[in-house]
């Protein structure tokens, strides 16, 4: 849907300093462009639960991190996410790939479609569903609104084949 250059330019415009990530086949293609962007660092972690904790430390240290993971990683993130967003109440924004939303050819009946949005609701994360390239402005507006409110938020990026 989006190119790495589009995403890197958007994150730079929003003042993101660090993108903490575990790749998937869609968002992973953005990594090189993010790593090349001036003033922005790509932090590769081993599992998604780590991403929230590294982002928390970056936030404590004065940086403006963003978590970039797939929805399967959201499921894995549980307790770390709870601690960072709800105990410490850190306003960490995330961009989450929504596996199989656009195409179930590879994984017919993918349970990601059953659980992703209810899990975001359960964790009380306000999200915007992004299904087309024309919605890049929605990500920008939602990020800025969450930043101004000092609360977490997410952009849920519809993906195609797994």
């Amino acid at each position, binding site marked *: 849907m989006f190119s790495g250059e589009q995403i890197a330019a958007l994150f730079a415009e929003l003042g993101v300093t660090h993108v903490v990530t575990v790749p998937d086949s869609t968002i992973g293609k953005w990594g090189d462009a993010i790593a090349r962007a001036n003033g922005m660092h790509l932090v*590769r972690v081993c599992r998604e639960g*780590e991403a929230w904790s590294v982002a928390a*430390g970056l936030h404590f*240290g004065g940086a403006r991190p963003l978590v970039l993971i797939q929805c399967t990683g959201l499921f894995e993130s549980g307790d770390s996410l709870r601690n960072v967003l709800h105990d410490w109440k850190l306003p960490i924004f995330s961009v989450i790939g929504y596996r199989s939303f656009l195409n179930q050819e590879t994984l017919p009946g993918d349970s990601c479609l059953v659980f992703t949005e209810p899990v975001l609701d359960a964790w009380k994360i306000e999200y915007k569903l992004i299904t087309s390239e024309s919605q890049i402005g929605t990500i920008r507006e939602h990020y800025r609104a969450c930043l101004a409110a000092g609360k977490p938020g997410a952009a849920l990026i519809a993906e195609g084949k797994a």
Partner: protein
Amino acid sequence: MSGPRERMSQREAMAALHAARRADDVVVTSMGAARIWMALGARPLDLPLVPSSMGTAPSIGLGIALAQPGRRVIVVNGDGAMLMNLGSLVTITAAAPANLTLILVDNGVYEVTGAQPTPGAAAGRADGASVDFEVIARACGFRSVYHFSNAASWTRDIERVLGEPGPTFVLLDVISMPGTPGPRSPGPAAARALELRRRLARGFS
């Protein structure tokens, strides 16, 4: 794998660190280490990670170290917590922050839940041989790795160890203290988070 070894008290180990740390260091502690650290007297830049998500202290320390490259960050983690997030050792060495020291206090048990053995401890393993965190750290890419089993050698060498370019891994063999309570939160987490960020942003020491 390794067998039984000499151990120091965790309080002695932490007291040595408390005496050696600089005022402008950030010290992140979790679980039993956080309880002892708060009793010794945490400084304004310290982060007793209470409430915590068990295992996340090294990751949080890594984030602080990356955001504040000019400041030493010291993380004190337990062995049970380390086993929950072993991948963080690889993440740390991938990012390679020169200002990060990870201290692992290994007592072989989940102390605050009643001292049940961890799967890494001799008592928790079918083969009766404990997992060797020193070897694990080296295999994960740490170049500076230290191992201390008594307080005298740890106290003697601590300033040199903390002065090493990191990331540095330190394994301390400590005695378990069954029945020890978990740490108590020193205050509302959200307010402490805001205050720590404000202090770090202005270079508070």
